[in-house]
């Protein structure tokens, strides 16, 4: 098992190398000049040349890449062209907001998607199933940006049930910065008002971001459950006189979870891409906003930094999912 994990971690290194090669060269074939974006239309040629030199952009692209890679290995992601700060520092600042939002959205997706899928399968072709499938279809088709605006318009603007955009009301001051995760920091500071308010601010963006994954997870859980529910061992379990709840939760669900887990792992990627739009609508100061702003400004170091971090997170999450397989299914062995 530990050899397997070590192997996977080593292959993660290769994945990251591949991702960085691709991103770096794609970024450099874009027919536009990041220096002009940074300095604006009024910049003179000598200022442009000085800037190019300062950021090493005057060297050949392969050389730039090797220099970049050398720095990354030493833990230096370079300096952002746009914010003019170390990319690592920027990521540390924006990452927690996205982790908080993504985590909450993931929770929404799991808590709504899995039970909805199970119930749909158990009550196949009954009214709940129809409603749940319709809901899943709608959830999977709604554009995140639109959904965010509608939820905000309805629950914040019309009904006033939830607070507006941002992570915290204007009247409240954030707690002392420790983890950057507002909920944790508020809890550590024992600041109940901030904690409640931050939770309220989290609901609408988490629903917006989580709905697509909820739909996908619900559909996958349903089909996996249906496949399992008609297997012989389920019939045997029922024939033994086991309670239906035990049959479903202990026997069926455990096996149906394997394909569902795969989707849960993959949905992490869609959460990260959805975060870009959700963060824009809800003025959420996270990685998605940072990535968009960096991409628009052709801020290569920042785009590379975000890509590497996201790729790392994605591979780690999927490694975690693979390890959970082994727990769920004794047939899965990692040597």
């Amino acid at each position, binding site marked *: 098992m530990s050899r397997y994990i070590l192997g996977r971690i080593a292959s993660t290194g290769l994945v990251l190398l591949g991702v960085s090669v691709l991103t770096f060269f794609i970024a450099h074939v874009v027919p536009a000049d990041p220096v002009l974006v940074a300095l604006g239309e009024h910049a003179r040629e000598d200022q442009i040349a000085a800037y190019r030199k300062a950021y090493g952009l005057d060297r050949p692209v392969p050389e730039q890449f090797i220099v970049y890679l050398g720095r990354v290995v030493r833990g230096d992601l370079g300096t952002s062209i746009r914010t003019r700060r170390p990319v690592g520092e920027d990521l540390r600042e924006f990452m927690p907001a996205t982790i908080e939002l993504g985590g909450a959205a993931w929770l929404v997706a799991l808590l709504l998607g899995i039970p909805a899928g199970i119930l749909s399968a158990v009550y196949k072709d009954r009214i709940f199933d129809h409603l749940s499938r319709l809901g899943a279809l709608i959830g999977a088709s709604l554009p995140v940006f639109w959904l965010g605006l509608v939820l905000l318009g309805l629950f914040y603007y019309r009904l006033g049930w939830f607070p507006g955009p*941002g992570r915290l009301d204007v*009247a409240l001051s954030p707690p002392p910065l420790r983890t950057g995760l507002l909920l944790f920091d508020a809890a550590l500071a024992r600041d109940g008002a901030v904690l409640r308010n931050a939770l309220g601010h989290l609901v609408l963006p988490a629903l917006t971001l989580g709905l697509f994954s909820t739909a996908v997870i619900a559909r996958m859980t349903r089909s996996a459950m249906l496949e399992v529910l008609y297997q012989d061992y389920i019939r045997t379990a029922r024939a033994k006189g086991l309670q239906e709840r035990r049959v479903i939760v202990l026997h069926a669900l455990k096996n149906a979870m394997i394909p569902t887990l795969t989707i849960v792992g993959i949905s992490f990627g869609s959460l990260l891409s959805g975060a870009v739009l959700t963060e*824009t*609508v809800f003025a959420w100061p996270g990685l998605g*906003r940072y990535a968009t702003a960096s991409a628009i400004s052709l801020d290569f170091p920042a785009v590379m930094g975000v890509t590497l971090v996201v790729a790392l997170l994605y591979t780690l999450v999927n490694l975690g999912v693979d390890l959970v397989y082994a727990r769920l299914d004794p047939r899965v062995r990692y040597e």
Partner: protein
Amino acid sequence: MRALVPAIVTVLVLLTVPTVGPTLAATAADTLVYVADISDMISLDPAVAYEFSGILVAQNTYDTLVAFEGEDLTTLKPRLAQSWKITDAGSSWKVTFTLRSGVKFSTGRPLTAKAVAFSFDRVIALNKSPAFLFKDVAGLKEGDTRAIDDRTVEVTLPKTASPQGFLSVLTFTVGAVVDPDEAMAHQSGTDRGEAWLRNHSAGTGPYVLERWDTESRAVLTANPNYWGPKPRLTRIVIQHVPESSTQKFMVESGDADIAANLTPEQARELSAKPNVKVQKGGLLQLVYVGMNAKHPPLDKVQVREAIRWSIDYDGIVRSLLRGEARKVQTIIPEGLFGFNSAAPFQQNVARAKALLREAGVPNGFSVELLVPTGPAPGGVKWSDLAAKLQSDLARVGIKVSIKETAQAQLLNIYRAQKGQMVMILWGPDFPDPDGNATPFSDYAAKSIAWRNQYEDATAAALAKRAALEPDAAKRRTLYRQLTDRLLHQGPYVILYQPTTRFALRSGVQGFVWNPMAFAEFRTVGK
């Protein structure tokens, strides 16, 4: 199984039941919440900030020696300097300022002439984005600003720089005075406090920076040591809300007092609401088409004049921009000293055709028009503007092919003098006519005239003379001559000067947008 159903219902209820109760109907009485896209905020140090939102904060936390107040960018007003005079010292200009007495920094230390010299030298030494205004526009070097005594500052400018232009530069945050002791107390390496001043303030302005959370909000509180009239509101929250629809929700629901980035449609919608009012704000940008003066047949003055007579300017302002712009046809925008209100051109097909005949192209010609992607100032898409121009020019026989390209790429082509016709915008770097006159007139300045291969020695000489002229009346005459000349000779079609718009809660008063793209919050009340 039955246990699952209540669990799901509980989750659903938890997710939809209010967790914090209804949102507040209004912001606190002593606080102004200003929502805007502040993603460009990268430093609040006046020697570094050169982005709209950074400048907005720095203009409120620091003071300059002189200022343009409100919407008027033509009359210099005293600020930290009580008075000033320009003297011709033979080989240089001397600009001498007498400082206001009794002014203190927010730190409690007194304002001195040495602080001014320190601040100006600091800008030059740090050499960040706005430094070119001191180094290139004013020709300043470290040591050129001297404290004569505690209240007298003397700046020595080279004869090649414009003293009036320098005074205009000083109204901008680059001329802000920083508390030297505070900056140096936080020096790291040789940065003269730059890292610390990125998110702290040490000025004499009406507000102090309380905190700045990147991509989230900047909070200002009233400066207890402020020398001027007490600000009407004690707390200003500049909240980052990138999406304009969200800004609209916030100002409508009372969670924001001012929304800064609304589309014209949203503003129109809001103007019908009872608790919100919409206010326009001036901008100094000009949207124009540059014509490459070496590209035949655009090299003929008559052809360029024919193009100017082909365009339906009123239609652009009225229909495409729905009034979100002013018709301006000269190279200095309305609001700046030296503005020339002449706007002779309006669509006149017969006249344009006659000019084309005179130029030897009676049947018209084909030309490529480069336009950026995305929205143009005033809320219209660049591509829609281009389509309008295409149809207007088609009426006189000029066949325009539109090439839409990302602005950064467009600038590459434009800067390499490879555009035929290029539609783009220009805003001056500092509130002085020279911020437009030299770029549009002087080929050697390697700016707009150069990009359009327009070499006009007369225009360049006029721009230089006007820039250096210390006498206001004479200067105005020179700019009149220059703008009149370029109106007909130049390779430009000035299309319009855009305006911007704000939605304000109806109780908000005293909000004035300075066309250099900032507001002074000290006058705002509610």
